[in-house]
């Protein structure tokens, strides 16, 4: 049917016809109006409205384009709207998750939540001070172990590594990135159970498990940054007679400290939300425990998980605590993401 209306003979470029630039927007308004009208009759809901609008929009635009601009342009417009649509579709879960966590988590975001543990708490009230402390302690230990190993490994790969060992390590770091978090937890469990007996549950076990997840992230980001340091800087330093190790420390690492700090902060943000490895290594407790070498510790993710999976009565209060713990966790992750940006600005070498 479109044969009649496509651009005449197709010989001269000037003859081809276009939809006006405002056409997609006009069609969108039309489609929205049409869907609203249809749904007003059938009973309105937001999801149905958006889906119907998107479908109507696509059909009308493609048919119009095919009639005026020809099949090739119509396909182009079809793909464009698909691609834009898929991006918008991905925003739906993001917005929904953010909204749910904030609205449901806000219910218990009070002083009590940060100052009380769950020790002796029955029913409503109680807090996650013990879980917050556990998360911070375990994450701090993880960072203390992972960062030196990660940065030195990256230094090795960029500055020293040659031959098959370097290739093997590059490859193994990639493999390590792909280890499922629960397997990392089982590894720490298997290791400590061998030494301390089958009922060993310690904060440090959780740290070891998280290290397996954090080290490759630190290595990757540091390596990337170190490779960006211009070779001239190193050569200038060597030319001045500076030993290699001082060149690495004072020139290479100094130049890239902003990037490294950013990478480390993002790596912390990644491991701080891990639940599964802590579930099998650290266990769970209702009371505050500041000692990672003695007994079970609570952490925010596991606190959230057990409040949901094994709720105490009344269930509503327990679920509220689960959401608030989730909200605090998300706030922590976002804080570290923001911190990464601040850090990268604060640490970058001053250029005058």
């Amino acid at each position, binding site marked *: 049917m479109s044969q009649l209306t496509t651009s005449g003979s197709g010989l001269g470029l000037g003859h081809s016809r276009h939809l006006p630039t405002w056409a997609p927007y006009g069609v969108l308004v039309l489609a929205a109006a049409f869907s609203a009208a249809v749904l007003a009759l059938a009973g309105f809901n937001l999801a149905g409205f958006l889906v119907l609008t998107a479908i109507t929009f696509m059909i009308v635009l493609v048919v119009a384009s095919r009639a005026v601009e020809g099949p*090739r342009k119509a*396909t182009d417009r079809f793909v*464009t709207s698909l*691609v834009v649509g*898929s*991006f918008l579709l*991905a925003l739906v879960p993001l917005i929904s*998750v953010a909204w*749910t*966590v904030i609205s*449901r988590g806000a219910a218990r975001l009070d002083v009590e939540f940060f100052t009380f543990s769950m020790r002796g708490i029955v029913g409503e009230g109680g807090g996650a001070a013990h879980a917050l402390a556990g998360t911070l302690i375990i994450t701090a230990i993880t960072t203390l172990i992972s960062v030196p*190993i*990660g*940065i*030195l*490994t990256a*230094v*090795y*790969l960029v*500055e*020293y590594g040659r031959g098959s060992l370097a290739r*093997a390590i590059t490859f*193994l770091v990639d*493999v390590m*990135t*792909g*280890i*499922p978090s*629960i*397997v990392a937890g*089982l*590894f720490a469990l*298997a*290791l400590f159970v*061998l030494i301390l007996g*089958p009922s060993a549950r310690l904060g440090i076990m959780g740290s070891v498990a998280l290290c*397996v997840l954090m080290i490759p992230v630190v*290595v990757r980001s540091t390596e990337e940054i170190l490779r960006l340091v211009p070779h001239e800087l190193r*050569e200038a330093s060597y030319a001045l007679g500076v*030993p*290699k*190790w001082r060149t*690495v420390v004072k020139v290479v690492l100094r130049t890239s400290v902003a990037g490294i700090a950013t990478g480390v902060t993002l790596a912390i943000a990644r491991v*701080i*939300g*891990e*639940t*599964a490895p802590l579930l099998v290594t650290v266990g*769970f407790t209702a009371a505050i425990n500041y000692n990672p070498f003695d007994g079970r510790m609570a952490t925010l*993710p596991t606190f*959230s*998980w057990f409040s*949901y*999976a094994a709720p105490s009565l009344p269930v509503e209060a327990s*679920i509220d605590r689960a959401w608030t713990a*989730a909200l605090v*966790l*998300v706030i922590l*992750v*976002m804080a570290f993401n923001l911190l990464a940006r601040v850090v990268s600005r604060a640490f970058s070498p001053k250029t005058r």
Partner: protein
Amino acid sequence: MTATSTPPREAVPQQRVRQRPGDRIFAGLSTAAAVMILVILAGVAVFLVWQAAPALVAAPEQIGGESFWAQVTPLLFGTVLSAALALLIGAPLGVSIALFITHFAPRKLAAPLGYIIDLLAAIPSIVYGLWGVFVFAPAVVPIYTWLNENLGWFPLFAGPVASGRTMLTVGLVLAVMVLPVITALSREVFRQTPTLQQEAALALGATRWEMIKYAVIPYGKSGVVAASMLGLGRALGETMAVAAVLSIGGGITFNLISNQNPATIAANIALQFPESTGIGVNLLIATGLVLFVITFLVNFAARAIVARTTKG
């Protein structure tokens, strides 16, 4: 090795650089850290095998009446099915989002839009789990009911529909979780497409889609495959979201919208672990070992593909 690390000039005869103690110590330290990676990975494999061994060799009566492989098969099925669903939904979406960011969105917006998608990766999995069970699962029940009523003859949609905590829901939640992984890598590949080829295609009168079809996608194809496999690896190992959302019961089934679903390996470990003792723990570690081997193979394949493309 420190002596040869500065690039030697051709004409100058190789001079012996004085070895300073600081150099030796620093080189030793960084090499030790690198070797540490080897040790850790070897440790992961060794300790898992060590602790899994009792369950692998145990008689069926000792580990709950069935042999190890009979117990692990439904879990394996659930793991693969959920990850495959996630990939089936997540990969096309992820690739088209990557295309949107690199080739459709205004230049200035590309970076912030990419950052928004990366935010999806920043959300902890436990949060996805809570969201999936309290918000998403109830929201999709009407769709499942419709599918069941109209396509119930099709085995995938046999039903009966109850709470929405089904395999399909898990697949959708996992799809959201692997989306940022697939998008991030695809974006990198699409951005590296030779600009000249793209401009040549446009100059020949190609529409934007034709340019992408003939210049961008063939170039990025293997990168997209690798990205999808990395996403698959992530989906296979995801624990908490599945443990929270999936309603478990029954064995192997392709029925995607009922409440009787096979568990996944990772979710099964998280759910069973708190109540397990003795050989039960060994059994869970053995299933973890199976998961480790599978994700290792998938990641290995993905990295091999990436390595081949970046070389060629």
